[in-house]
């Protein structure tokens, strides 16, 4: 990195921290800190809703999947996000926002009982700490691999092995300062800033790359149909790059996993709860869905271009690349961190380090100046994702764990103080988790697996809770446990192709082989959801029905329809939903 790149990065830090400092003055109560005073306009919440989910792992991971699977990766957006975002805005937000619950676990207490809330609050709190730790680890590793700080470290006479620690500490401190000072509003405002920075940093990459390979038609000619069609070959798992058939994709990803995340994860729902009115809260996920729909062009496309480019840099004067067979592109091979040797797959061919697809593209196309902006965008994506975890953690910790089980009945001032304190120790724990990820990769893989088991059945509980008034607390609790157990058992009995029994599955016995890990994941989710759904229904019918008077505002059939604010026709939630769905259908047809 040169001086100009540092200037851009420094400017970003000044603004991010500045927002925290300015907003400090407006934080007076715990509601200001945890819910941004419920005063944020819809478009700001909408962009934050999308941005909090857009961590560095997503930017890096979606580029990597683009290089590996092609444009079919867009299913994670068009099938795996948009329908759920529309559903949460139109159908679920009236209960989240209308119940005045301060968090998703608190909604579960209002609707069901204490034990269901406790289960959700504790698993969610642990999960946020580990996921922000894992993303912190990922960004530090990336900075180390790209050698962005090496020059400065050499000049300052510092040991370059400290770069990993430096990257972790600096990013943690920045996020800490602005969330500590301004709470959720500071996180949300920064997420909007970060959203635009991510666009500003990645849009020129897609533009230059696409121009270089001769546009979409050039990309199609170079890579062939398996990379450039999202639905073709989805009839059978063996005829597409993802290794999943359409039913597993639509039900597993599009229904269970996607709805489970977008409709129940407090990290995103919190952004909508901060909105200034019911209609703003409902519009939040819908507004977020518009950029979400187009993000494949920013984060997936560079991955495809990276694999399409010839390994030798093209002649810069002629620009357009001659047709080259699908190959490595500019993606480097995977190198073992300790030995420095190239890692080989089972056929003895070198493995590609797909995670470096997007970073390699940045270094390939961006001159000093824009490179600083690109790296800032990468860092911004990391920070927005991390702040999302941190603000969700401090809220769930303070309201759902501390206030409920440790110290009820304290003053609001005390809880505000606890919110700030938990921001500090939440980040400290995340740093611990980042180092744990660095030393014990297997533990992290196992934890992520356990979280997947806990999350998979969640949407069944919410769906029944919100739309069937007969659902009882005992049923919700036992359904969640049964769903998690079903996920674990299914994982233990199946194995993806080319994997060994263990962390990848098959640790009980192998009764079924899946064509890919993705197919196994999707089907694990389907089993978990169905089990939770059935068990919740059966146990509900066996237990005493809840009193209807207590469910007003929490269940669909007992809640008056939300009053429509006088908005222009195009700004109403229903109109936005129709536009988003129509746009998504159109994109699916174009990239069929």
């Amino acid at each position, binding site marked *: 990195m040169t001086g100009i790149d540092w200037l851009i990065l420094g400017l970003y830090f000044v603004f991010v921290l500045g927002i925290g400092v300015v907003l400090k003055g407006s934080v007076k109560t715990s509601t200001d800190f945890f819910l941004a005073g419920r005063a944020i306009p819809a478009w700001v919440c909408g962009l934050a809703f999308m941005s909090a989910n857009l961590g560095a792992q997503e930017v890096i991971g979606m580029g990597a999947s683009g290089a590996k699977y092609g444009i079919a990766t867009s299913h994670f957006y068009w099938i795996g996000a948009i329908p759920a975002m529309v559903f949460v805005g139109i159908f679920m937000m009236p209960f989240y926002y209308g119940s005045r619950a301060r968090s998703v676990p608190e909604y579960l207490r209002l609707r069901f009982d204490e034990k269901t809330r406790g289960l959700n609050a504790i698993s969610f709190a642990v999960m946020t700490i580990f996921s922000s730790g894992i993303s912190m680890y990922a960004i530090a590793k990336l900075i180390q691999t790209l050698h962005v700080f090496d020059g400065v470290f050499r000049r300052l006479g510092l040991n370059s092995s400290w770069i990993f620690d430096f990257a972790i500490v600096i990013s943690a401190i920045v996020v800490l300062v602005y969330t500590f000072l301004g709470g959720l509003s500071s996180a949300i405002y920064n997420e909007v800033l970060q959203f635009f920075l991510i666009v500003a940093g990645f849009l020129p990459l897609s533009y230059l790359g696409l121009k270089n390979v001769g546009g979409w038609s050039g990309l199609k000619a170079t890579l062939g149909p398996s990379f450039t069609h999202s639905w073709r070959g989805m009839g059978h798992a063996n005829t597409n790059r993802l290794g999943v058939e359409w039913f597993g994709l639509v039900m597993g990803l599009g229904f269970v996993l996607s709805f489970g995340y977008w409709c129940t994860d407090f990290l995103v729902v919190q952004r909508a709860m901060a909105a200034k009115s019911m209609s703003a809260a409902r519009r939040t996920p819908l507004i977020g869905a518009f950029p979400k729909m187009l993000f494949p062009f920013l984060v997936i496309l560079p991955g495809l271009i990276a694999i399409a480019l010839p390994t030798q840099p093209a002649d810069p004067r002629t620009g357009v690349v001659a047709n080259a067979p699908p190959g490595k592109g500019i993606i480097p091979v995977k190198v073992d961190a300790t030995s420095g040797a190239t890692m080989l797959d089972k056929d003895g061919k070198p493995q590609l380090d797909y995670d470096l697809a997007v970073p390699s593209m940045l270094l390939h196309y961006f*001159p000093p100046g*824009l490179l600083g902006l690109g790296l800032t965008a990468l860092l911004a994506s990391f920070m927005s994702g991390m702040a999302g975890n941190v603000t969700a953690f401090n809220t769930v910790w303070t309201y759902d764990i501390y206030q409920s089980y440790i110290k009820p009945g304290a003053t609001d001032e005390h809880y505000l103080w606890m919110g700030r304190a938990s921001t500090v120790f939440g980040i400290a724990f995340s740093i611990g988790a980042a180092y744990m990820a660095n030393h014990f990769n297997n533990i992290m893989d196992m934890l992520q697996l356990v979280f997947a088991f806990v999350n998979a059945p969640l949407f069944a509980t919410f769906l029944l809770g919100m739309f069937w008034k007969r659902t009882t607390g005992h049923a919700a609790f036992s359904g969640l446990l049964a769903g998690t157990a079903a996920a674990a058992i299914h994982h233990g009995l199946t194995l993806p192709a080319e994997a060994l029994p263990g962390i990848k599955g098959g640790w009980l016995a192998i009764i079924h082989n899946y064509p890919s890990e993705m197919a196994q994941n999707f089907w694990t989710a389907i089993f978990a959801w169905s089990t939770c759904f059935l068990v919740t229904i059966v146990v509900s019918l066996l237990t005493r029905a809840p009193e209807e008077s207590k469910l007003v505002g929490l269940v669909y059939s007992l809640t008056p329809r939300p009053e429509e604010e006088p908005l222009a026709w195009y700004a109403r939630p229903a109109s936005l939903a129709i536009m988003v769905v129509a746009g998504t259908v159109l994109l699916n047809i174009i990239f069929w």
Partner: protein
Amino acid sequence: MGIDIRLPLGALFSLLGLILIVYGAISDPTRYQQSLGININVDWGIVLLAFGLLMLLLARRGARSAASAVRKP
């Protein structure tokens, strides 16, 4: 509450745009072979500056209409 986010957004992007334009104009043109011969710093700097100014303009308008809304009961 607090601030109008369009204000810092506009200020940041205007500054980023200016920095890229100035740097792009004075930097060595041969550097831009890697960006396909396009001086992407200048070009993208102009886009960012325009976006920044637009945000500042909207923020000013917003503040004005808010002020007049307060005056009118």
